[in-house]
């Protein structure tokens, strides 16, 4: 049975999760007086209340956008971690527009999100351009850009957008016309979720059913081959960076308009690495990214609930997450059994 690749993958995934959970349980045994309750809260609590399940979806939205933005870059074999800075900076762009008065509550968020997206795209073009034209290492430029965008963003907030009624770094309250409506009552799931679904579908079709997607995939698999085939890496890199930045920008905007009342991130939101995590867990596939984001959101929501309802310290949440990620992403976990099964069966196909 293990000889079948698909079945093997499923069994492997299941076993990896199981092992990770066993390890988690052992950790809980050590830190908690009520490990069983903590464990079951972590695993099942998101399913116990509609609102909790809503939390999973709410959290999944920004993770997915960051993941999609990163996955597109990784697909083109661009190791760029700039989603972090773009998320932050586009939040400020969002604040600049969302705090303006505007009469139309349908157009206001749309315009805000679009402009944020374009701003994100344009920012991403900076490392993109240097990569495309001069082969400048995009890991370095994107990491540096994150910190530069952070400082620049703070500056803009302070001199142009700072709310006077608050003592911290914050913009004025967003206009109510700019906020995204809640689409599922009883939760805070907002219309951004619909935008996410649309983006995933568009991205899927773009990647697997258009010429652009084809050239992105070929370039990612083999840049020499793409060049030889007549694809223009320069424009392709620019396009990919723009789209990625755009996704980051609208993701940021959607998160703020859906979940916040004002811009008040005083540090980078930390979505750059989470985005990379989602992208890689989802194998850089749009649908995979969303599934990964869902899984991680589910885990984080469950762990949050566990941490606030039991004596388990919040730090355990990340520790558990790290363990689970490590095991799930193991390619060779149980590979031995797979190979043994293959030999027993005498191979599945002829050379």
């Amino acid at each position, binding site marked *: 049975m293990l000889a079948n690749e698909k079945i093997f993958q499923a069994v492997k995934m299941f076993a990896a999760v199981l092992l990770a959970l066993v390890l988690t349980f052992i950790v809980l045994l050590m830190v908690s007086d009520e490990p069983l309750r903590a464990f079951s809260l972590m695993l099942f609590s998101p399913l116990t209340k509609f609102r909790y399940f809503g939390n999973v979806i709410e*959290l999944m939205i920004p993770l997915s956008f960051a993941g999609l933005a990163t996955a597109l870059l990784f697909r083109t074999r661009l190791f760029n971690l700039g989603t972090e800075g773009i998320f932050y900076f586009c939040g400020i762009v969002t604040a600049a527009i969302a705090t303006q008065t505007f009469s139309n509550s349908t157009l206001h968020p749309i315009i805000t999100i679009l402009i944020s997206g374009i701003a994100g795209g344009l920012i991403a073009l900076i490392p993109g351009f240097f990569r495309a034209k001069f082969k400048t290492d995009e890991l370095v430029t994107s990491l540096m850009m994150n910190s530069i965008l952070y400082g620049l963003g703070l500056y803009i907030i302070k001199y142009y957008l*700072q709310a006077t009624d608050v003592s*911290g770094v914050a913009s004025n309250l967003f206009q109510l016309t700019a906020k995204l409506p809640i689409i599922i009552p009883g939760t805070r799931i907002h219309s951004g979720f619909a935008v996410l679904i649309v983006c995933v579908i568009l991205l899927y079709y773009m990647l697997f059913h258009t010429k652009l997607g084809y050239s992105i995939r070929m370039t990612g698999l083999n840049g020499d081959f793409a060049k030889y085939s007549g694809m223009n890496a320069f424009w392709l890199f620019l396009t990919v960076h723009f789209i990625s930045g755009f996704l980051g920008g609208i993701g940021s905007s959607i998160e703020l308009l859906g979940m916040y009342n004002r811009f008040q991130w005083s540090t980078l939101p930390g979505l750059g690495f989470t985005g990379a995590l989602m992208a890689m867990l989802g194998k850089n596939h749009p649908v995979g990214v969303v599934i990964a984001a869902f899984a991680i959101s589910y885990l984080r929501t469950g762990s949050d609930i566990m941490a606030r309802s039991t004596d388990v310290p919040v730090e355990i949440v990340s520790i558990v997450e790290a363990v689970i990620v490590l095991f799930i992403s193991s390619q060779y976990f149980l590979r031995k059994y797979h190979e043994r099964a293959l030999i027993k069966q005498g191979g599945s196909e002829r050379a």
Partner: protein
Amino acid sequence: APKKEPEATVKVALLIPFRGDQSYFDVVANGMKLVTEQIEGSETTIIEMGTDQSKWENFYLDACEGDYDVIIGGNWEATPTFEKVIAQFPDKKFINFDNSAAPTNANTYVMFYKANELGYLTGLVAGLVTKTNLEYSDDTANIIGAIGGMNFGGINDFLYGYIQGAQAVNPDVKIIVGYAGSFSDAAKGKELALNMYAAGADIVFHAAGGTGNGLFDAAVEAQHYALGVDADQALLFAADPAKQKMILTSGTKNVDLAILQAVERFMDGTLPYNTIEVLGIKENGVALAENAIYNALPASIRDVVAAYKAKVVSGEIVVKDALTLTAEQWDAILAAAAPTN
């Protein structure tokens, strides 16, 4: 397994982003400790919500749905979320431990602390110490320093008070202000402090959370004085008297005491809901840590500090605040206070 314990007299939940900054949030958290220690049979829970603000509402909702008698939360960042949730639970009682605006809900009591007065107190000490020849200060250069975590109103309020306090007792004093751009980079804090000492400051204050911890290392290294913030930070170095003696005092924000008192008043039924109470020097909302190190200072210094403190309490001196200043106004204030070449 559920534990069988006698029914608690009062169940209190406190929601904060995190603990462990060794200043502000730890003082807040200490409020729960005081409650547990001083109110018999009380049961307290500290819930750390994390820094992802989009999740805070979940935490508040869960706390409200729990069986707590009082839920303490807020501060300026979380207040909008807090109040949104409060509106859904008219039968519960809430304490906002730190916010500058009056509550929008009838069942909420809000406290606010005058950070500018805290800064004023430390400024008095700094202004006096720098013109005195103490073991680690000298009267040659009339320069003092202050490190801010980031440049925004809440932090500048401390610094503005500090500037006013120093200038009140030492009109010619020059104040170097530097921002670290982070509340968690102690190494950066140390670098800024060393630069300040190198530029002639012999006493430096900070309002920079974890970044400020680096200040104390710098003080030991440069052999000059430092001033703590929010909590009595000399306690950090209880194990190391050589370091401890560099931290002359700290401007404390007594959120813990305030929380304890509020919970006591809740139990008495005397807590004024739908009200904001502003706690300054007069209300003991902010104070100087008058520990052994401080008390070892020359009486001449301590007497002057006490005198100015009394003037603030009496209302004779009004410390201006930085909350409503524009960025440009603030830049001008800093430029005026800074040493010239």
